């Protein structure tokens, strides 16, 4: 495999350039609706309870009662213990259930236990599996091991979609982000994803651009379209629109779809809903108008 290196300064500068596009009125409305439909509404906390997961699912299915034309989100993303409940709560709505697995967020467990976790969530009915790679192994140079683990996880997924979390905040360099992206795509990832949301920095525009370019090169070489999911740290509607601009200008319209691009977020949706309400009524919403999850 050809090893590509990334010019960090140039990548960051190019990523920053996507912030300068002005998106108003109709385009903004379309963009915000698209953001909603691409959201993986996420709750990954120790305090997650059945009640909270049910509430989240309700919000996922109908994010903005009272505002016309707002779609359901793409998926709810939960811990393995809540997969069965979430599956039941979103049944019939078209909303997917995603589960983190493989000893999320650290990935520091024996491989057979991690694979068993994947098989369990798939048996519970999850549509998508978000796995973490072994960053420790990658940083130690054991790339083959990482690739084999991804391959094994893909096999354990069966028909469920596999998203591979690189945890870019721990990968130190853009070169390694690129290397991990290429590795994951070759090993069978359906999506590559920036972060767990548990490590800062999480998704940044620079790191997302590096991964989008890896996806573009992979598509050119193989014709296979891999999806992208920045997760964590994207909090405002404006920022989300900048990401969409970056996707369009790097990969083209084909990727502007929930089947190939997702936002992993919890608070982003609220800001998008406040903006949509503003476009709908002309008035900014109050803090009590949107649920805090």
């Amino acid at each position, binding site marked *: 495999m050809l090893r590509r290196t990334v010019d960090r300064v140039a990548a960051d500068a190019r990523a920053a350039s996507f912030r300068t596009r002005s998106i108003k009125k109709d385009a903004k409305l379309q963009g915000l609706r698209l953001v909603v439909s691409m959201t993986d509404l996420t709750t990954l906390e120790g305090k997650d309870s059945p009640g909270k997961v049910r509430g989240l699912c309700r919000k996922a299915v109908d994010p903005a009662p009272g505002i016309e034309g707002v779609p359901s989100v793409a998926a709810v993303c939960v811990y393995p213990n809540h997969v069965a409940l979430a599956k039941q709560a979103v049944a019939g709505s078209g909303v997917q259930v995603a589960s983190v697995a493989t000893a999320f967020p650290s990935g520091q467990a024996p491989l057979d236990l991690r694979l068993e976790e994947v098989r369990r969530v798939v048996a519970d009915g999850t549509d998508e599996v978000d796995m973490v790679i072994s960053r420790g192994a990658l940083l130690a140079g054991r790339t083959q091991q990482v690739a084999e683990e991804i391959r094994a996880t893909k096999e354990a997924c069966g028909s469920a979609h596999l998203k591979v979390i690189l945890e870019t905040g721990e990968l130190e360099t853009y070169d390694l982000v690129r290397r991990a992206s290429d590795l994951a795509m070759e090993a069978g990832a359906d999506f590559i994803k920036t972060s767990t949301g548990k490590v800062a920095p999480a998704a940044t525009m620079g790191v997302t651009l590096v991964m989008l370019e890896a996806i573009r090169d992979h598509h050119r070489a193989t014709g296979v379209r891999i999806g992208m999911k920045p997760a964590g740290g994207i909090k405002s509607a404006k920022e989300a629109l900048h990401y969409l601009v970056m996707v369009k200008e790097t990969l083209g319209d084909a990727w502007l779809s929930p089947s190939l691009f997702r936002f992993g977020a919890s608070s982003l949706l609220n800001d998008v809903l406040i903006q949509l309400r503003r476009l709908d009524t*002309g*008035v*900014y*919403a*109050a*803090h009590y*108008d949107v649920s805090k999850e």
Partner: protein
Amino acid sequence: MSERLPVLKTYKLYLGGAFPRTESGRSQVVESAGQPVAHLCRASRKDFRNAVVAARKALSGWSARSAYNRGQILYRMAEMLEGKATEFVQALAATVPGGEERARREVEAAVDRLVSFAGWADKYAQVLGCQNPVEGPYHNFSLPEPTGVVTIVAPDEPALLGLIGQLAPVLCSGNVAVVLGSEAHPLATAILGEVCATSDVPAGVVNLLTGFREELLEQFAAHRDVDAISAAGVSAEERRTLELGAAENLKRVHVLEVAAAEDWFEEARFASPELIESFVEIKTLWHPSAS
């Protein structure tokens, strides 16, 4: 020796404890006798929205501070205003009719107004609240609590004293404020940001915008995350806009009717805890009494 070129100051907004440029990139020039004296931001609706976000974030911290501490901070504002008195006097004298003497009197009155409300901070609750006599083994208290995020539409004149006269009672009781300063004489509002930034006022508690009422008033009134409006020097039409907007989420609207700019100097009216009363909510508590 060549003549030195004076440096003109470019003022920005004061928002969430920082001095950002307006999101809209627009500016206005303040002139004196046909000469530019400063550049100011012309705030947009988005600046206002950002200000409300900052204010909402600051509310819980500010209202949880002890009344005594809020008083200390208001007093600190008075100190810093006094320290910048010359700058304010020059700015007002250059842009507002009435000359330097009038300007000095206004700045001094503004400092005194802040001191008055610094004193009220730990005393208004005793005036506005009470212990109610009830039958049975209970104490029963009525206590004033802050209303929340308050938007302030300041009068054109007096530019500084009017703004401080509205702001001090709002802050004193633990509210946070988003202020649209005098449209005709915005320079004092812009300088006041530097006072707030250096006087221990937590970020977001005071947010100062310079701009046009025509563009901002509607959002000042309608934004659902605003709890109350304090307005002075508004026309009947502007008042209507405020009240219609306030109906959106039942905000409190308090319009100060002030006949002349000179009236703002009246201490009996404007240093009174009645001004605080407009922006507090009364909570009544029952408490079991011992024996």
